[in-house]
């Protein structure tokens, strides 16, 4: 079977995948369905892989099992009601989803949150990042056959989630951000407890480094696997730690001024030249440490003052268009909000999610790899299904 025939067969298989038909072509090789319920797919993403022996000829992710139509729903809700929706995009770092939307609405209205609100926003943003990425740090091991780290990750993530819950009332879906500020101030004694939790998570990062990053078997499974060259990554819109692991020194926390407190903090952006699965793991590990350091600096330097700006009792956003992007745990997240000035919600709200672009590179990345590497690559790209399908 020639290469073009392979490509043709794969294309036909892709067509029929939508029609839910099991399709086997009389040829060498086989079509393998990974998912939608495969344990290594983080949810209901299905990957159709065409194999020749152990080698992947062609792969196509099939998404949409979780599509909830948020862009349509945003158009029939108030601005204040949209935060509830966007919470559920990347459910492991929910607070980080609210921030860019609220910032977009604030920019259209020409208001700015007071400093204390900006600091607490940044604080919760980074805690959402720690909660999100710490799970990845353990889960990557689980997907490669090392089951222990994921239990540590689930255990230690609770420290962060407890602190988020103490402020917002929600472990997963805080819905805490308001246009002009925040819902509430921090509770009493929270700062001390947070410092304890951060110390615990520092230990967790060290543990993960010993258990996984320094582990020879882990390194051999990851090094040189799933290399994303810089140019290809940019062309596909890969962002966040995935692109920093390919040597692109770009972090929106440092490179864009969106009204969060990052410019007051002392931290650095980590990059890795290799672009392989190990680099992606390593960059995320360093980023978690930086985030822990940021949280510690933020609670120490928290300014006093109000936590909400003066806003009209009824939020009404003047006509305009705005694009706001932030560096979310998974990568660049942005909202393109169009307002027509009516009392209702946004006229159009395009949600640019990081996982969507990060996963769109999968067909390119999986070509020519081997089945065990498929799991490594998918795990190291680290996507959340709600973030692809929104």
């Amino acid at each position, binding site marked *: 079977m020639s290469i073009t025939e392979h490509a043709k067969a794969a*294309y036909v298989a*892709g*067509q029929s995948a*939508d029609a839910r038909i099991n399709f086997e072509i009389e040829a060498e090789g086989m079509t393998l369905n990974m998912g939608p319920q495969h344990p290594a797919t983080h949810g209901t993403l299905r990957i159709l892989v065409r194999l020749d022996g152990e080698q992947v000829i062609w792969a196509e992710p099939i*998404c*949409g099992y979780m*599509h909830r139509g948020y*862009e*349509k*729903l945003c*158009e*029939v809700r*108030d601005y204040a*009601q949209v935060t509830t929706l966007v919470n559920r995009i990347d459910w492991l770092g929910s607070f980080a989803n609210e921030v860019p939307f609220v910032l977009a609405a604030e*920019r259209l209205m*020409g*208001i*700015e949150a007071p400093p204390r609100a900006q600091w607490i926003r940044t604080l919760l943003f980074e805690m959402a990042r720690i909660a999100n990425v710490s799970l990845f740090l353990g889960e990557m091991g689980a997907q490669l056959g090392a089951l222990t780290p994921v239990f540590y990750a689930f255990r230690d993530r609770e420290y962060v989630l407890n602190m988020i819950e103490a402020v917002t009332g929600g472990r997963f879906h805080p819905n805490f951000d308001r246009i002009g*500020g925040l819902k*509430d*101030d921090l509770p009493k004694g929270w700062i001390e407890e947070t410092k304890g939790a951060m110390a615990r998570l520092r230990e967790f990062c060290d543990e993960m480094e010993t258990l996984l990053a320094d582990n020879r078997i882990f390194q051999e499974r990851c090094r040189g696997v799933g290399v994303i060259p810089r140019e*290809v990554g*940019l*062309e*596909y*819109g*890969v*962002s966040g730690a995935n*692109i920093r692991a390919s040597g*692109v020194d*770009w972090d929106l926390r440092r*490179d864009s001024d969106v*009204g969060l407190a990052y410019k007051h903090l002392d931290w650095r952006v980590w990059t890795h030249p290799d672009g392989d699965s190990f680099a992606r793991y390593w960059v995320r590990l360093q980023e978690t440490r930086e985030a822990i350091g940021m949280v510690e600096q933020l609670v120490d330097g928290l300014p006093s003052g*109000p936590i*909400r700006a003066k*806003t*009209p*009792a*009824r939020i009404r956003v003047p006509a*305009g*268009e*705005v*694009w706001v*992007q932030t560096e979310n745990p998974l990568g*660049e997240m*942005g909202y*393109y909000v*169009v307002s*027509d000035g*009516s*009392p*209702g*919600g946004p006229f*159009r709200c*395009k949600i*640019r999610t990081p996982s*969507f*672009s990060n996963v*769109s*590179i999968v067909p390119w990345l999986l070509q020519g790899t081997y089945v065990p590497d498929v799991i490594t690559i998918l795990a190291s790209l680290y996507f959340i299904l709600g973030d692809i399908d929104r």
Partner: protein
Amino acid sequence: MSSEAEAPGGVEAAPVDQPSQALVDRLRGALGDGMLAHEVTGGDVWVRVAPERWYDAVGTAKAQLGLTYFCFLSAIDWMQVDLTATKLWDPDAEPSEPPGDGPGHWRTGIAGGDTRFQVMCRLYDVEGHLGLTLKADCGDENPRLASVVGLFRGADWHEREAWEMYGIEFEGHPGLRHLYLPTEFEGHPLRKDFPLLAREVKPWPGLVNVEGLPGEPDAGAEDGAVSEDADA
């Protein structure tokens, strides 16, 4: 037609505008008449190009302006549908009201527009930290535009999404198939005249801005009184 906001009001500061303006000038140099309108506001750049120059514009931005990062590609439907009517549930109301505007009268946003559907594409320079939103009109009834998959491979999924959500044909796309929706799905859900069934069979319980505030004659028409949050 081109509008230049010299003094962006309020929150945004001016210093970013110098490189942004330079970006616009270089793009105009490459496209000439193909660039229909532009706007530099709040440190961000919008450029509307002629639809037949869409591929060239994206290519120029990538090759000559260094905007190598593909952020997103999407579309807008500018049909004015009174969405509050859908929200304020009324069993006697028509489910989808006729548009308040029509061909030649579309009310469009930044950088203007002539047609109901517009495609927009956001590119970014990861070294210079400059972003650009390109827009192009693509028609009222059967919107179509050139595909940019040849320039940015990442545009594949974005164009498939815009195709199924808005029905925009991307000419030259290798396979416009459904991305999210099932194959047998009919219609384009993000078009403004596509009814949101959930709102039409059941009143929306979250509707809060119905009653007027005290001292406010017309509910929903005027801004409410400014209140300060006491619990802050």
